[in-house]
């Protein structure tokens, strides 16, 4: 078989079952890669070899007992906003620096039950607010393809560890593109499920109506396997959907003949870099060769998605993050005069600049006298955007376009200009607003030899179809097998 770090999840599982190596050996392999490379990447916030190896031993015992499943013994790492019992959950923030989660998030519990082995907790933009992973109290994450460039965000650590093959697979979240944009920047396959597919219980909220836990993987095939284990109804999340569990691997091999691909005019307009455009167009040629037909569609309100998002997400965040008040857990300012001073100092010292900016924006748009003009209007736009997609999906099965307007940019490039930074998510945000599933797959390289991501957006609950499209494309291309220097 291939080497451990390039093998697919299915290959790793087969090797574990065949006793070619043990789960402990597999975990040790990734732990030692992390030791070797993470000094450069800064992708992990917490590792704990003892805990990891204990889980690996348990997985080996389970394999020995013949009770193992497809994911038993496979290592996984979690973005640091998932609560994992006994591990810190910092959310990339100072305010939760010493917060140790006393319980497992629903999705963590599911993967634990499947026998996956926790490698550690991953760096991220503070509270998932950012597009470059430069907004972390624990320092910026570097892109494994070019250490002077950003890995994208907010799931930057998640992307970096999979791209550098420090983990075979990892979990992130996507609120406005936080799994797809880093996937695009790092040459990976990342999928944001339909809103409500994956329980949000135990996932520290940024914007509750947009957040979804999302798998980050080397391929659509791996992504499907992980997604199958992550999904399912959870009574503890009122927005979790009661649907029958689905095997997302089942339809990977269906042919694409006759597939109608919608190309939104608005996603190929000004603002899209030529290198990205070129890569997307050659991918479309490949998809047509696989039997797909392309039709032009329109999403007339696409331009409103960014402003609507920057009303709704900060509004929800301003309220969600209020619980970090220094009273019960987390950081508390060492000195203060009175209660209000304690709140003010704790939050001023505990939160970073971008988080404070979004709390201020959110507080403002919800304030008396502004609510109707901002929050209510943004919610109306949100409905218009969803309607646009609904209309478009009458003409096509999936929508395809670029994930990002540019390839990964240099560290520090946009840190002084929040609006430029926000524009990095211009193509990804609308699917969150509409609650649609969307994914990014590698489809070429652009300037500086950096990866380009192709975005696939499907109708609600069409993850199987999207993964089918992605898998068929990956069967016909090898962009997803390209490795950065440190993983070769």
């Amino acid at each position, binding site marked *: 078989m291939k080497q451990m770090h390039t093998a697919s999840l299915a290959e790793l599982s087969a090797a574990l079952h065949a006793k070619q190596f043990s789960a402990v050996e597999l975990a040790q392999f990734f732990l030692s890669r992390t030791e070797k490379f993470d000094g450069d990447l800064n992708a992990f916030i917490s590792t704990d070899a003892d805990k990891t190896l204990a889980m690996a031993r348990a997985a080996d015992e389970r394999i020995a007992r013949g009770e193992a499943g497809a994911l038993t013994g496979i290592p996984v790492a979690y973005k640091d906003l998932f609560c994992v019992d006994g591990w810190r959950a910092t959310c990339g923030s100072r305010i939760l620096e010493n917060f140790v989660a006393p319980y497992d998030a629903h999705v963590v519990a599911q993967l634990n039950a499947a026998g996956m082995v926790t490698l550690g907790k991953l760096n991220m933009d503070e509270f998932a607010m950012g597009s470059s992973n430069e907004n972390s109290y624990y320092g910026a994450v570097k892109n494994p393809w070019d250490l002077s460039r950003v890995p994208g965000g907010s799931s930057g650590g998640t992307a970096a560890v999979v791209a550098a093959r420090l983990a075979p697979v990892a979990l992130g979240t996507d609120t406005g593109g936080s799994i797809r944009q880093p996937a695009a920047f790092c040459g990976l396959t990342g999928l944001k499920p339909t809103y409500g597919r994956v329980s949000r219980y135990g996932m520290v*909220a940024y914007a509750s109506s947009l957040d979804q836990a999302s798998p980050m993987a080397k391929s659509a095939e791996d992504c499907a396997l992980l997604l199958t284990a992550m999904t399912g109804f959870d009574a503890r999340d009122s927005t979790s959907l009661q649907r029958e569990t689905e095997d997302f691997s089942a339809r990977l091999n269906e042919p694409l003949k006759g597939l109608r691909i919608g190309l939104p005019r608005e996603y190929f307009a000004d603002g899209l870099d030529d290198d990205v455009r070129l890569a997307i167009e050659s991918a479309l040629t490949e998809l047509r060769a696989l039997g797909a037909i392309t039709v032009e569609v329109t999403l007339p309100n696409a331009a409103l998605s960014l402003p609507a998002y920057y009303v709704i997400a900060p509004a929800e965040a301003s*309220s969600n993050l209020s619980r970090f008040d220094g009273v019960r857990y987390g950081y508390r300012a060492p000195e203060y005069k009175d209660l209000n001073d304690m709140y003010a100092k704790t939050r001023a010292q505990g939160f970073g600049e971008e988080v404070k900016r979004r709390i201020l924006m959110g507080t403002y748009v919800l304030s008396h006298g502004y609510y109707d003009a901002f929050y209510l209007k943004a919610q109306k736009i949100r409905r218009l955007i969803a309607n646009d997609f609904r209309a478009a999906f009458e003409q096509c099965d999936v929508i395809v376009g670029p994930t990002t307007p540019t390839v990964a940019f240099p560290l520090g490039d946009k840190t002084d200009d929040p609006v430029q930074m926000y524009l990095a998510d211009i193509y990804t945000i609308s699917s969150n607003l509409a609650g649609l599933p969307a994914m990014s797959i590698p489809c070429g390289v652009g300037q500086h030899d950096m990866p380009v991501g192709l975005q696939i957006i499907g109708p609600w609950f069409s993850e199987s179809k999207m993964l089918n499209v992605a898998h068929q494309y990956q069967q016909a291309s090898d962009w997803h097998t390209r490795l950065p220097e440190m993983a070769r």
Partner: protein
Amino acid sequence: MNSVANFAKWEVVIGLETHAQLRTQSKIFSGSSIAFGAAPNAQASAVDIALPGVLPVLNREAVVCAIKFGLAVGGTVAPRSIFARKNYFYPDLPKAYQISQFELPVVVGGSLDVSVGAGAESRLSTAEPLHRREAVLRETPVPPPSKHIRLTRAHLEEDAGKSLHEDFHGKTGIDLNRAGTPLLEIVTEPDMRSTAEAVAYAKALHALVRWIGICDGNMAEGSFRCDANVSVRPFGQAEFGTRREIKNLNSFRFMQQAIDYEIAWQIAEIEDGRKITQATVLFDPDTGETRSMRSKEDAHDYRYFPDPDLLPLDISPEWVAEIGAQMPELPQAMQARFCAQHELSAYDAACLTASPELAAYYENTVREAGIAQAKICANWVMGELSARLSRDETDIAQSPVSPLMLASIVRRIADQTISNKIAKEIFDALWQGEGADADTVIDARGLRQISDVGAIEALVEEVLAANQKSVEEFRAGKEKAFNALVGQAMKATKGKANPQQVTDLLRKKLSA
């Protein structure tokens, strides 16, 4: 306070907001118990202390309570209502927002008709012992005026925790046991025009929520507490005056004192040429005064918005109908039935429906004694039983005399086996645990009434012979002397002689 305030010039306007703690097993958005009195924070789960990542899940039972209330007050149960976040920082509010309902509450409208007047405001309340109220009402036979009070809305929300300022050496302790306790906030229109009306409404509401079983009404434990919005305006003025809100009134007496004080204070302020500014005030039971907590200027901007963690609350007409079918008979319907079927007075009917327990006791007694004895049953329940319960500070559920026992007494009164006086002796005996019913006590103590004509005649002869002085006085026109003779006859038989027969026979003999 200006003691010369001219009350006659001013019209008082009051609206009430009441928080009724719902009688569910667990909290409104978590599985923690809501039992009172646990060690601090023993009933605070991950959700209640707002750990990162936790989410609320609505307690269905709390919604059932809200639907019951909506039906009981004739309001509209909203087919769709929305939970919203009310954002503010406070140490005992763990999420720094309270989940409540804002634009779309679960119950809209409805009303309550309450009786206002001397003693009568208590007609739906158990706050005053019945026998005392009965006495008051008998002195004021004019039926108390009824007041129609419209409800604006009722919405579901969670309670906050408690801040404990004592025992922590200058620091504040936080107890989150109460955080997340389900509340129904019931808001009236500004329909009340006096303290008496406000208190009458609060008592009626208190009785109603207990009646339909959605709230235990325990005011000392904070299960039922009111905020009163009070303003005054010159009679004839259409616009309302500026209101001040008195927070957290947790007894009817405090409510009365606080509103009375507030009205007098506002009138005095205006008459002294000052303006009332909108404010939230607290009532201090020690001084009997209200004092400002915060003015409108430093009022919070709560930044309400729909809670994205919770779906809209959809209530189907079928669900409402299902709950409607399980609703107990409401006090007003029960009163009408008592008047029509039991031929009770409106007053008796109201007294007996003061609480579901009392009404059930009465109905069970009548069922055993027979509907023809309803009035006697009513008198005993409102009189002797109520007095005894209040003297012994016992709940009706713990009454040593069961409806079955009381009915056995009533039956023996009705068939003239015993007199009222003996009946009280039997009641006492049963209360003390002597005997299983009236008959066993009657037999054990030999209390059977003497109604035998021959025996009574012999007795009367004996009394007349032994009390010649009284006979002479009576014949001289002293009516009092007659009573003395009756008394002697009763005394001679230890009260067992049928008093009516004794009286009749004495009259007959004396006039012969």
